[in-house]
């Protein structure tokens, strides 16, 4: 704090401090004028607001972001994971039935169950944070190594969920099951014949393990056990992980942006867009089940669910409602981009493996549509919702 008695005892007085009284008066007047100008400017700012705020929707501040996060958690996230748990349970049962009686019919049922579980799993990638990060995600869905799986089968077992737990991620999970259940090069009868014995037993263990992982994931979110749904849904109130609604929103929007990017890349890579146009079917995500295109579509479906706040019969607030509190035009633009992605994906007349050679133009159109969706999320949605892109703790400005 400055000491008044020393205020005038300037060691090296400058000309300004030797000013005469009229000069001091002049400075005071200048100061008053500056203060008045400042007040006018601030008042002008307020006036400018009231004059320009004419064609806007509701005040963004009125939107209940906590309610939106809670409803997305309750109406989309948890139900998707419950559905995945149920689907994985059905897959376990179907694979067990196949193992008990390997026939083409039980194989077909197991394949259908695999595709159903796969579909909801890919939708859940729209919120692939929290408990699923790391080991759990890898145990459920990782690139399979056929030779390594053959080696495991060749050991003869015994196989159960616990023994599968000890295996590396390239020998278990959905993709290991896909390798066992699907073979586009072989007839169904050949697949059944190949799996009889050790193969079917291992498939059963894989199904059991996958179902256990799905249950673990669901329980981690369930309010009666891990209660991650409350961590996300109560961001900024009782949540320990998300100190503010913005933290949760940032996590969610970054995730759907990443998902759109992944979806586009999963078309680009096999189509050869990254390698000069030469198709590379080996880069398909789910080549054996020929469901790579469905994987892409289900990712977009996951984005759609978060955007609308809707899954199955459950419907509540979603990101679109928050965006709508700021810009109805953006809501319409994003809806349009999502719809165009679906349309472009559905316009591919055959599954991806065949489309790589038979319908590359349609596939590229689907790629472009998904890229457009990524662009609008990464630029407009992020801006309007005030989301911080790319988590890092670097400083700004």
């Amino acid at each position, binding site marked *: 704090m400055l000491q008044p008695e020393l205020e005038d005892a300037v060691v090296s007085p400058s000309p300004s401090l030797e000013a005469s009284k009229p000069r001091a008066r002049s400075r005071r007047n200048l100061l008053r004028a500056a203060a008045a100008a*400042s007040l006018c400017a601030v008042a002008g700012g307020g006036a400018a607001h009231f004059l320009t705020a004419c064609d806007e929707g509701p005040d963004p501040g009125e939107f209940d972001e906590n309610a939106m996060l809670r409803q997305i958690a309750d109406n989309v996230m948890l139900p998707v994971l419950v559905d995945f748990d149920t689907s994985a349970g059905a897959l376990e049962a179907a694979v067990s039935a196949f193992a008990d009686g390997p026939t083409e019919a039980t194989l077909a049922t197991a394949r259908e169950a695999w595709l159903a579980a796969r579909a909801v799993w890919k939708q859940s990638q729209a919120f692939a944070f929290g408990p699923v990060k790391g080991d759990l995600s890898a145990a459920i869905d990782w690139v399979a190594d056929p030779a390594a799986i053959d080696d495991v089968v060749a050991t003869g077992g015994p196989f159960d969920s616990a023994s599968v737990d000890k295996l590396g991620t390239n020998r278990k999970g959905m993709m290991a099951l896909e390798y066992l259940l699907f073979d586009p090069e072989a007839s169904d009868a050949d697949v059944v014949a190949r799996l009889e014995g050790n193969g079917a037993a291992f498939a059963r263990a894989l199904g059991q393990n996958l179902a256990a992982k799905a249950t673990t994931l669901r329980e981690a979110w369930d309010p009666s056990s891990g209660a991650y749904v409350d961590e996300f849904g109560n961001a900024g109130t009782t949540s320990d992980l998300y100190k503010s609604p913005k933290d949760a929103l940032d996590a969610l929007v970054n995730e759907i942006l990443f998902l759109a990017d992944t979806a586009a890349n999963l078309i680009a890579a096999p189509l050869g867009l990254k390698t000069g146009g030469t198709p590379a079917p080996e880069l398909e995500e789910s080549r054996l089940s020929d469901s790579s295109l469905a994987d892409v579509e289900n990712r977009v479906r996951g984005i759609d669910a978060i955007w609308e706040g809707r899954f199955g019969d459950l419907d509540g607030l979603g990101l679109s409602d928050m965006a709508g509190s700021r810009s109805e035009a953006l809501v319409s633009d994003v809806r349009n981009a999502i719809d165009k992605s679906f349309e472009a994906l559905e316009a591919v007349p055959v599954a991806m493996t065949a489309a790589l050679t038979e319908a590359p133009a349609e596939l590229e159109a689907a790629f472009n549509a998904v890229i457009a969706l990524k662009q609008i999320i990464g630029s407009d949605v992020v801006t309007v919702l005030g989301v911080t892109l790319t988590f890092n703790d670097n400083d700004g400005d």
Partner: protein
Amino acid sequence: MTTTATDRAARGLSRAVDPASLVAFRVALGGLVAVASIRFVAKGWVAEHFVDPRHYFPYWGFEWVRPVSASGMYAVYALMTLAALGVAAGALYRVSAATLFALFTYTHLCDKTHYLNHYYLVSLLTGLAALLPLHHHGSVDAWWSKRRGRAPRAWPAAWVLWLVRYQVGLVYFFGGVAKLGPDWLVHAMPLRIWLARGTDVFLIGPIFRYEATAYLMSWGGAVFDLSIPFLLLYRKTRPFAFAAVLAFHVIVGRLFQLGMFPWFMPAFATILFEPDWPRRLWRGWCAPSSPPSAPAWTSKIGMRVAAVYCVVQALLPLRFLVYPGNVLWTEEGFRFAWKVMLQEKNGVVTARAVDRSTGERFYVAPSDYLTPLQERMMSTQPDMILQFAHMIRDDFRTRGRDVSVYVDARVSLNGRPSRPLVDSTVDLSNEREGLAPKRWVLPMPKDPPRF
């Protein structure tokens, strides 16, 4: 008449001034940069900024500046911290200050991804510190000199103090000038976006719900920046002005992730106080024994060099005026111009490489080359987009392909609908970086912000 005024100004600037505020400034500068360097290492940014990336975005003319090895960069930061402490203590001052300036500037020349206005300010201030006699008093060097029986050094000339004041004041003033645009004043952008995200801030958060708050803060912020250097210089307004500085930086520090910025600026702003303010604050700090002395010939040369520096620093922030288009969109003349907190800009970039011989097309995702932070920063800045295109061209060249590179960049600025930032039909592999306007940058969209 002019000659008389110039002479009077020269005489005034040659007058000796109490070095106390310059000593306080030196201690603050060195101390805070030392803390910033330690913080930088502790947060793991050495690896993130200098080791993890496979490509860098050097500044035009400084393409030769590259990070050294990982251990080398850690050594750079260790040395930088020591040099900063040396500056604070005034120990081996010239070597310490020159080393600090060289190392700090080097680390920030490596990659423009990490450009920050206050890093640039620190570079300038450490550069000035290396040249100015800030160590003649209140320093280890002065103490050592006294112990060896040498006479105390003369007080610095007033121009030394005013040069540092000018540099610090310029940050605020041009920060205010930059706010005199329609986005800031008419649309209250980007504050309307940012404040809406800060409604949970303790105590003041609820008022951010109102758009009027954004307008008041925008206009108030502009007035604050434009006037604060002058209000800090004037004795009667100084206490209120400094209280406003503290409040301003506490609020922006709480609202935004600004790191050391809210610490640097209030500390640096004290240079605008009376030269003897530290002596008044700490009465135990005895009056200097050295009498004022006449300026040496070096002071006269220094004054002329300082005048040139001041002119350059006044013109540099205005260079955007010679480029066509809105600087917030084109970013030509955006850096080194104190354009602080002016934009909420987000974009997505995709690129295509086309083999000139075979016509084969390659879709290129930025993540194939860049870290997430590099990708984010590149996506909205045309010069970095050009550098990214050249990265792709050079990479394909190493694989035996001669390619054209086309970039699709959609960018949203301050709440406007996203629009293409660059002409996606222009082969950027042929475009050269330089000071000339970038003709391939598309005009800023005329749309108003979405809300």
